[in-house]
Structure formats: structure tokens, C-alpha cells
């Protein structure tokens, strides 16, 4: 078993057997350029300074590490702390990555960015970063999602972006990614593609992880300042895997810190009823990299389901596959029903409406806390706020709150 503290990915973007670049030759040149530029940027103190500046003054970081007294009491075990990414500008961790990549775009002298989006969170975050830096921005979004997520479409337009409705395939996130990749192949000379999670071909998984690592780095510092020690357990939800990767990465070498990734258990373990890629999937290639993926018997991408749009993805970042195989991170899942219950509990007990994605992490966090003593510390990555999910939760509760 390889040590998880070794430097991954390697120069070809391999995390053990995972990652890499499974893309058309057309993109290889651009990916190599991007890797080079990113490597330079990462080592450039001036770039770091800019990133830190916008994180602090624009995004509102550091986000608090908040002791959830009432959730702790309810769980009746370990002390629960919430890393409040919901307080970031635009309401989730997504913006960290978008600001990072937009800064990189500016540095590369490219005037245009594109992005894919599912429910619209990454689209809004990208449109936000594009507005901030005066970049032209087009966001690909499945036609189905455009219909369902009118509010986010409106926001992207208000931020000056164009939203392109994708009519192909399942007309959802997967197709938006395919379409964005296609756009990029034709426009790579002047366009950067801001991928929204730790997925896609190298260098995206490593780059997005690095930008998101500000979550874990801050958490570590805050644990040190507020608690005088490391946490015992860190829990985060896993869709593509960016908030979790950003949270976990700085703790990887701290072998005493238990890391738990929570996937969408949906309605059950049957194919098509969940989006638990690491729990139920197998290694495969999707959207440019090798990682766990949910596929049917023929290798076609499987249908997935989750009450939470941000977890409803049949793939996962390659580094997670690596962490799973090396057992550095334990992956589990939480069902739709449990997540909705978690949403309700967190709202009523802490006065914080969690994103449904985040609700998955809360449920697991409380489960773990229950089994541990009050001396222990469980940190939950509170990836985003739940405002965006109120319509869906209300719909599931049989209330109509639209119009």
C-alpha cells in the first residue's frame, strides 16, 4: 500500500492508478499549458497574495469554525464544530475555486471563461468571479436544469454571463460538461474552462483541490487557536469532491485525524437510486480522468439520483478514489430521507439552513459524534447554505412556495 502522504499527483496527474488525462488530443496542448501556468502561479508569492486578498476582502474569509452547541447536545457525544463555508460570498465553497481559476485566467491573459453547471451553484460562482475580473463568461447548463433552476439562471444573467441551454443527451449536468469541453476544444487559445469540482483531466483535480485547501488549512489553524489541538474526526460531503478534498487535504498527513466522506445515498442501493460513486461504483473513465464511476454493465454512465443536485453526479474526483483505496478516507453515504431530516434538525437547532449537500455531512457528523465521548471533536465541513434548496424541500413536503 502506497503512503498517502507521498506527493500526488505525479507529473501526468496520476493519483496512484487514478486521474490522468483521458481527453482528445486537441486539448492536450491546452492542458499542458495550463499545468505549466498553474505550476508557476502556485509558486508565485504575488499570485498567492492576490488569491489571499480576494479570499479575505471579497469572499469574506476566513470562514468561522463554529461550535454547534445545540447539535452537540442533540447528538449527545463528541463536540461538533461547523466550518462555515455557507458564509462565503455566493453561499458555498464553490467561490474559492472560481476566484482562483479566474485569477489564473487573467494571468494567462485569456479574456473569456466557460463553465458547466448543474443546479447552478458553480455557474453563479463562475459568473461572479468573471464579473469581478471583467471576463466574458458563458455557462453551459442542461436544458432540464435551466427549466428547473430559473433563479440561478437569472443570477448568472444579472452578473453579466450568458447561459447556454444544452439540449443534448440527458439535458443535465453531464451533458453540460460534455458541451463545455467541446467549446473549449474550439476556443482554447483565448478561453479558460473553469471546472467546478476536483474532476476532469489533469491539472484540474489537483488545481481545484489546491484552491479549496484554504478550507482545511484554515480549519487546522482554527482548531489550533480555538482548541489547542487537532480534531478527531473531519466529515464532508462528496459530490464531485471539491469541498471534501479541500477540507481533507491539509489533514492527510495527520494520520490520527479520521476523515469521512459522505456520498448521496438517495433512495437506496439500487443502480439509479443513488449517487454513491465510491460506495457502489468501480474504476472507470469519465469526463477526462480515471476514477470511481457509476456505469452500467456496458460501461455507459449510469443514471444517478439524489435529493441534492450538487451530489447528483456519477463520477468523483480521482484523488478520492486514491484515498479510498489507500484507506486514508472512509466513504459512506446518507439517504435522501436522512438528509432532509438533517436539514430540518440543523435549521431548528442552530438557526442555519444547510444546503442539502451539507445536510448529508451533518447527518453523518452527528452519527459519529454520538458514538464518541464529549472530549472528542468532530468538524463538519458546512459546504453551503440552504436558501437554494428551500423550493425543493418545500416541494417534497408538499408545500408550494413558488409564485
Amino acid at each position, binding site marked *: 500500500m502506497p503512503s498517502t502522504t507521498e506527493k500526488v499527483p505525479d507529473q501526468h496527474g496520476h493519483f496512484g492508478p487514478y486521474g490522468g488525462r483521458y481527453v*482528445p488530443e486537441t486539448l492536450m*496542448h491546452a492542458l499542458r499549458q495550463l499545468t505549466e501556468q498553474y505550476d508557476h502561479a502556485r509558486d508565485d508569492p504575488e499570485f498567492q497574495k492576490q488569491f489571499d486578498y480576494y479570499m479575505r476582502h471579497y469572499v469574506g474569509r476566513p470562514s468561522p469554525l463554529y461550535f454547534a452547541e445545540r447539535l452537540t447536545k442533540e447528538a449527545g457525544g463528541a463536540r461538533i464544530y461547523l466550518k462555515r463555508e455557507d458564509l462565503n460570498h455566493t453561499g458555498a465553497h464553490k467561490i474559492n475555486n472560481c476566484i482562483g481559476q479566474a485569477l489564473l485566467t487573467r494571468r494567462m491573459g485569456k479574456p473569456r471563461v466557460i463553465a458547466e453547471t448543474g443546479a447552478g451553484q458553480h455557474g453563479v460562482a463562475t459568473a461572479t468571479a468573471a464579473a469581478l475580473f471583467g471576463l466574458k463568461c458563458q455557462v453551459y447548463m442542461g436544458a432540464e436544469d435551466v427549466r428547473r433552476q430559473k433563479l440561478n439562471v437569472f443570477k448568472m444573467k444579472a452578473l453579466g454571463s450568458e447561459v447556454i441551454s444544452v439540449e443534448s443527451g440527458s439535458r443535465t449536468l453531464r451533458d453540460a460538461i460534455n458541451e463545455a469541453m*467541446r467549446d473549449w476544444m474550439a476556443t482554447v487559445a483565448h478561453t479558460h474552462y473553469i471546472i467546478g469540482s476536483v474532476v476532469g483531466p489533469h491539472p484540474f483535480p489537483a488545481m481545484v483541490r489546491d484552491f479549496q485547501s484554504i478550507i482545511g488549512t484554515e480549519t487546522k489553524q482554527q482548531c489550533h487557536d480555538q482548541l489547542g489541538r487537532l480534531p478527531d474526526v473531519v466529515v464532508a460531503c462528496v459530490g464531485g469532491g471539491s469541498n471534501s478534498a479541500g477540507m481533507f487535504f491539509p489533514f492527510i498527513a495527520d494520520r490520527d485525524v479520521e476523515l469521512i466522506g459522505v456520498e448521496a445515498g438517495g433512495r437506496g442501493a439500487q443502480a439509479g437510486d443513488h449517487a454513491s460513486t465510491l460506495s457502489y461504483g468501480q474504476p472507470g473513465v469519465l469526463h477526462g480522468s480515471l476514477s470511481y464511476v457509476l456505469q452500467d454493465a456496458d460501461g455507459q454512465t449510469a443514471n444517478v439520483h439524489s435529493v441534492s443536485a450538487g451530489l447528483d453526479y456519477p463520477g468523483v474526483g480521482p484523488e478520492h478514489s486514491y484515498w479510498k483505496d489507500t484507506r486514508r478516507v472512509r466513504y459512506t453515504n446518507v439517504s435522501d430521507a436522512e438528509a432532509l431530516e438533517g436539514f430540518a434538525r440543523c435549521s431548528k437547532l442552530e438557526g442555519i439552513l444547510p444546503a442539502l449537500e451539507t445536510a448529508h455531512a451533518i447527518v453523518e457528523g452527528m452519527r459519529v459524534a454520538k458514538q464518541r465521548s464529549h472530549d472528542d471533536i468532530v468538524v463538519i465541513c458546512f459546504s453551503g447554505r440552504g436558501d437554494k434548496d428551500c423550493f425543493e424541500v418545500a416541494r417534497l413536503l408538499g408545500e408550494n412556495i413558488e409564485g
Partner: protein
Amino acid sequence: MNPIDALFQRLRSQQRKAFIPFFTAGDPDLETTAKLAHEVARHGASLIEIGFPYSDPIADGAVIQASYTRALNKGLTIDQIFALVRQLVQQGPFKGGEVPLAGMVSYSLVHHRGPDNFLAQAAEAGLSGVIVPDLPIEEAAELARLATARDVKLIQLVTPTTPRDRATRIARMSTGFLYCVSVVGITGERQELPAELLDQLCWLRTQTDLPLCVGFGVSKPEHVRMLKPAVDGVIVGSAIVRRWEQIGTKPIDAIVREIGDHVELLSNALAE
């Protein structure tokens, strides 16, 4: 000798060029795909590229993705495609490899079946080569080794953005022919072919003895005429596949005939 190698040897000796149509297996159905293969062979196809529908084809254009989606929605499986190939190579111009068949398949599908398993089944069915458009050379070593062992050609792609040293390496790894992408971007019809392409082709000639075939965006006789002096073959995909968008408004046989006519038009331009 592998039928693809044999084909280009034959064509070169006759100073002719290969005309390579592409279409999707199972769009609109497998029976029609078989008919279409015979139709295009009759109208001048030298080699046929058969697309394996995949749910998330980032390497293909919208026209081909739509075709893939149509086929998959009908429940098409890979085993059925292999059965089609198996059936084709027992008859007419496909028997004995006179018109070789190559598969165009995403690495996602290859990986899922297991690369060696996939190649074994492809070879057994009668495919002479495969094109895996989302498998760049960095990831391709293993598959290339296995393909050589099974005498299946692994046709690699170069693009206008590929740096020269890299193109040399790609050419070195490719077998059967070298697939030269004509434009930056994805498959789909274009109005014009870029001039730099011709330069690139000339330079590639100095680097490799492999046949050079150009694809992506070729749809008109003018394109074919322009390319002819510099290439060993042209590949035409979207211009054919998009005809199936008419299904429902036109009888299947009429569309098959239309495609045949178009292939004849283009292959004549190549043979002029």
C-alpha cells in the same frame, strides 16, 4: 497482413486515396447500419469507421453525440455491435478484409470491458483497427501493446495544436494510419479547411511513412479536392450521420440512398 495495412499498400500502389465514411452503429437500428455499410462500400468507401455509441462523448461533436443518444435510447449494447461486425465480415466486400472495418470507441467503454478483453472481442468479431479518440499517447502505451499483440491497429490522432515533437511521438505510436484532425475543435461540418493544415500534412510526411488521413469537418467535394494532394485518405463523419436527423420525416431506405449518393459524390471527387 492486417487488412488496413493491405488496403493502404494496395491504394498506394494504385496511386489512389482512401475514402473513409464514419457512422454510428445502431442509428437508427442495427439492420440499417448493416445496409448502410453495404451501400457506402458500393459507392466507393475504402474503409469504414463504425462508431460505438457512448453516453458521454467529450471527443465528439453535437451531431455525433445526438446519434449516439438515439442509438443508446434504443438499448444498443456493445455485444450487439460486435455481432453486427461479425455478420458483416462474412459477406461481400467486408469478407476477407477488402473493405476493412475500424471501430471508433471511447476509452471509457474499453476500460470498462478491460482493454485486453475488448481488443480480443474486437479482433474476434472482425475489426481491423480501433480509434480511441480520448486516449492520448501518455495513457495509451498499454493499449498499444495489447493491440499489437492482437494485430488490431490502434490509430492515433494529431491535431493542429499538437506541437511538432509531440506529433512525431504520436506518429511513432500510431499503427494503420495517422488520423489528422483538420480543425481545432470537435467533429462537425465546416465551410473551409485551414491552410495551416496543408503545411502540417507536408511536414508530417517527412516524419512518418504511415498513411495520413484527414477527418473532422470534411463534408464537401471542394474539401476533398483541396486535401487530395496531401493525404492518403479522407474521413467523413458528421456530414453522413446528420442525415439520420431526418428520420421520421423520410423513409429509412431513402436516407440510406441519400447517404450512398453523398459518399459517391465525395469519393468521386477523391478519385478524379
